[in-house]
């Protein structure tokens, strides 16, 4: 346990790093000459843009190749308000940020359904649309852009000299740094990282992924857009050729070179992107070539970025605190009626009905391809059923988005385990809390922390809490998925082949775990191939074959049912069939 604690020196670096950097920057403004200070000011502008795109690309994992659009929207909004309406710089700032945030919705909305790679071209296209539009319109000055933008005044003093501007930019940077620092501690940041790791799994465990993605665009745009007015004030002009695809690339490079999701990395990236070409001025026409080759080299040597994000230990209370009261058990917790789903001509699930009461374990068995997982996906909203109803504690949930189904009290695990690999074990469990509490813009609550601790202890994972989920052994991964599902304090828990690949010891532990879960009044629905396990834990068993329930009843009844035996033997292609038939007897 001792080795888990960070050495004091590192803790110091984490907490003292930023103030030291800002102090160094304050001193640098005094020492450096005008040229170096101008370059440093540009570095700060790129660092602000980098902190903005870091939200979109670094946290939420949404590739953005058109981020210069938000830079442009910020610059043009501010510049136009100053020139046409004679507003002061400070008055234009909130409007510029709002305009960029609104455009974040415009770009974010159509991309929500797209596979992540397509974001590249859509965001690139958006960036080009904005740039071409400002060049084509007269009100934005066409290709000339805006000129004659007055300098910023702070307390009656005009900011014109390079050191003055540097300090102004530094103040902006510090403000943005604090803001993004606060953002990085919110539940939203955990939701972003979960979405980045696996957005379908995040949705299934209760994260409202669409809202979370949209917020990434909106907040990223808002943060990055601050650089626009600043840049306009620095140059006194807004030049549309500053917002080309190349600019977007440079902004993206800031976060890629530095390390995605890493704020110190953004600063390193901004220095590299701005200062490296300046340092390469001496090589003249080879400047671009050198920069390009260095870029390839950096990526090959450090694909994770120069300063990758460091996992932050998620703080948990020393004691788990009292158990929450179990949900009032009444009648059927999960009621599925007449569920049907067709794929083309194939009926995967036909007229399936299923009831699981509080504290019951209902198992669904059947040969491979019988439609078990499809049925799960229909129940949890990941696939829309063609017909049928699904109720949780009497509430209709069919037709709802998966995260709403999860919020209604239906948690699940996946056949092929879907953890958030880059998050720690504790963070994985924390994300499971979204089904219980969807609030985003505040840090994880004490209830969250207590639940995480409780679930980790319940599943025996407390020791591994701060390890990345990707590094866990197989058995622990299964248990972590269950812990994540339990964090939602669900009414019903759907387990999809939890014993697959487990050894006898692990299977016994799993049976024990299922027993303890049902003891807490949770309805458990189990898909499983291990018939022996099924027969020993289940209250009732439903047998599926080619999408239809061919038998349902207590284990003893099922064991004796001829149709069940026939169904298993009747699938000669399935190598497990003979074996399972034996087990059934």
């Amino acid at each position: 346990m001792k080795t888990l604690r960070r050495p004091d020196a590192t803790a110091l670096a984490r907490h003292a790093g930023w103030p030291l950097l800002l102090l160094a920057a304050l001193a640098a403004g005094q020492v450096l000459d005008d040229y170096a200070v101008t370059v440093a000011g540009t570095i700060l502008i790129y660092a602000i843009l980098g902190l903005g795109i870091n939200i979109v690309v670094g946290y939420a994992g949404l590739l953005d190749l058109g981020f210069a659009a938000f830079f442009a929207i910020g610059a043009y909004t501010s510049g136009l308000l100053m020139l046409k309406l004679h507003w002061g710089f400070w008055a234009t700032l909130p409007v510029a940020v709002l305009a960029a945030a609104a455009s974040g919705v415009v770009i974010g909305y159509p991309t929500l359904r797209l596979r992540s790679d397509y974001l590249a071209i859509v965001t690139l296209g958006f960036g080009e649309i904005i740039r071409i539009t400002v060049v084509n319109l007269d009100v934005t000055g066409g290709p000339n852009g805006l000129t004659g933008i007055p300098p910023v005044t702070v307390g009656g003093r005009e900011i014109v000299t390079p050191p003055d501007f540097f300090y102004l930019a530094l103040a902006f940077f510090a403000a943005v740094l604090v803001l993004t620092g606060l953002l990085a501690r919110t539940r939203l940041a955990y939701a972003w990282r979960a979405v980045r790791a696996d957005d379908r799994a995040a949705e299934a465990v209760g994260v409202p992924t669409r809202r979370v993605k949209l917020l990434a665009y909106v907040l990223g745009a808002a943060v990055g857009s601050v650089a626009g007015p600043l840049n306009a004030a620095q140059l006194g002009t807004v030049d549309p050729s500053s917002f080309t695809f190349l600019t977007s690339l440079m902004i993206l490079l800031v976060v890629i070179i530095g390390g995605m999701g890493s704020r110190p990395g953004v600063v390193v990236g901004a220095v590299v992107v701005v200062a490296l070409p300046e340092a390469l001025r001496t090589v003249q026409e080879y400047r671009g070539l050198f920069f390009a080759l260095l870029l390839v080299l950096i990526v090959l040597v450090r694909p994770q970025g120069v300063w990758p994000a460091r996992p932050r230990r998620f703080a948990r209370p020393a004691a788990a605190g009292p158990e929450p009261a179990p949900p009032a058990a009444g009648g059927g917790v999960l009621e599925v009626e007449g569920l049907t789903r067709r794929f083309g001509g194939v009926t995967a699930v036909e007229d399936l009905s299923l009831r699981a009461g509080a504290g019951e374990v209902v198992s669904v068995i059947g040969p491979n391809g019988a439609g078990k997982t499809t049925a799960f996906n229909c129940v949890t909203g990941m696939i829309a059923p063609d017909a049928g109803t699904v109720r949780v504690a009497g509430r209709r949930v069919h037709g709802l988005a998966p995260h709403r189904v999860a919020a209604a009290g239906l948690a699940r695990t996946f056949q092929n385990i879907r953890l958030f690999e880059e998050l720690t074990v504790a963070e994985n469990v924390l994300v499971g809390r979204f089904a219980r509490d969807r609030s985003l813009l505040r840090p994880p609550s004490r209830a969250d922390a207590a639940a995480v601790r409780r679930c980790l202890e319940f599943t025996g994972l407390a020791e591994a809490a701060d390890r990345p989920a990707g590094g866990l052994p197989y058995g622990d991964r299964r248990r972590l998925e269950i812990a994540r599902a339990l964090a939602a304090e669900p009414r019903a828990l759907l387990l999809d082949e939890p014993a697959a690949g487990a050894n006898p010891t692990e299977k016994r532990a799993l049976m024990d775990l299922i027993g303890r879960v049902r003891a807490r009044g949770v309805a458990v629905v189990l898909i499983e191939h291990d018939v022996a396990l099924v027969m020993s834990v289940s209250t009732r068993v439903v047998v599926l074959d080619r999408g239809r329930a061919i038998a349902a009843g207590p284990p003893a009844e099922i064991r004796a049912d001829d149709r069940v035996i026939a169904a298993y033997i009747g699938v000669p292609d399935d190598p497990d069939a003979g074996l399972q038939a034996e087990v059934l007897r």
Partner: protein
Amino acid sequence: MTPGTPRDRRRAPRAAAAAGAGLLLVPLAGCGSGGGSGGGGDIRIGVPAPLSGDSASAGQDILAAAKVAADEVNKAGGVRGRSIRIVQADDACSAQQGAQAAQKLLNSKVVAVAGGYCSGAAVPAIPIYGRRDVPFVLDASTNPSLTETGKGKVFRTCGRDDNQGALAAKFMTGQLGARRVAVLHDNTTYAKGLADAAAGSAKGLGAQVVYEDALQPGQSDYSPVLTKIASTKPDVVYFTGYFAEAGLLLRQRKQLGLKFTLMGGDATTDSTVLKTAGAAADGYIATTAPLAKDLPAAASFVAAYKARNGADPGPFSVYEYDAVKLLAKVMGDTGSTKGPDITKALHGVKDYPGITGPITFDQKGDRTDPLYITVRVQKGAFTAYKKLDKTGAAWVDARTGS
């Protein structure tokens, strides 16, 4: 395995990364050192130009011409015994880099600046030089607004877009007798400025502007644009963009069998047009300032430039040469390298015999003499064609003046 080990391993490259990033700043900070040129030593003249990016070749031509001029001055004994040194700075044709280049030049203690190519890079640089009273002589940025907002500290040896546009309109309506004029640009600052000026003047001269729009540079196939223009039935099309598109337009106009006259602005008088368009370039007319080879006074410069760089000078090389030589002359005359003195002296220049013609500046810093003429492609080369006579009423042969 303890979790401490991988973390330690990660820390080393992190420290290296931080150090590396810090080191990047060192050469920047070092630029300011080195002797100033205010007192003794050589006199530094700054040359901002696009040395990287898409306009890099134009920037190299400008820089090379500045060096030829400096060499000449230095061989002839320099400025009152002090030699001239050219300090270059890449503005990459962008506003941000333009501002940084300006700071870098000021850091290097330049006493005056001669250069520039893209207006976009010059706009933010002008106030930076202005605050330090360093005069800026533009050699290629023809946008009217630059001298208008330069507070008298900005000069140019090149012409202005509005002058060229007016001349083009006169030529189209007068010499070519066009009633229906189409104007095509490429949505860059320069091309749009020239297009607006030409269209405005043409309307003032009673012609009908049947088309004014932009093509998108870089896409190589302009057949649809040409087809569209042809449908408006113009007598003349004036293209104000760059040479790369001009050659393609000429070639594709021939392929499409279109009959209207295609005329271009001064960014189209590059030999690339002739190579790309081949026979389709025959008879092509462009408005431009006189080309180096048509300037009798520039012959020795062209020879020196070729000897030094192994290639012909670019279209703006002569203006850069004049700018540097002129700065050297006024510094020699006044004996001062202080910005306000140089600025004052530049305003006092009267008919300085530049290789681009006599130079006199008006109050804004623009040349008082009309610069532009027309050239025509004949036998695979641009040759001087017509110019306006002194009265501005009649077109005369540009070489003979008759």
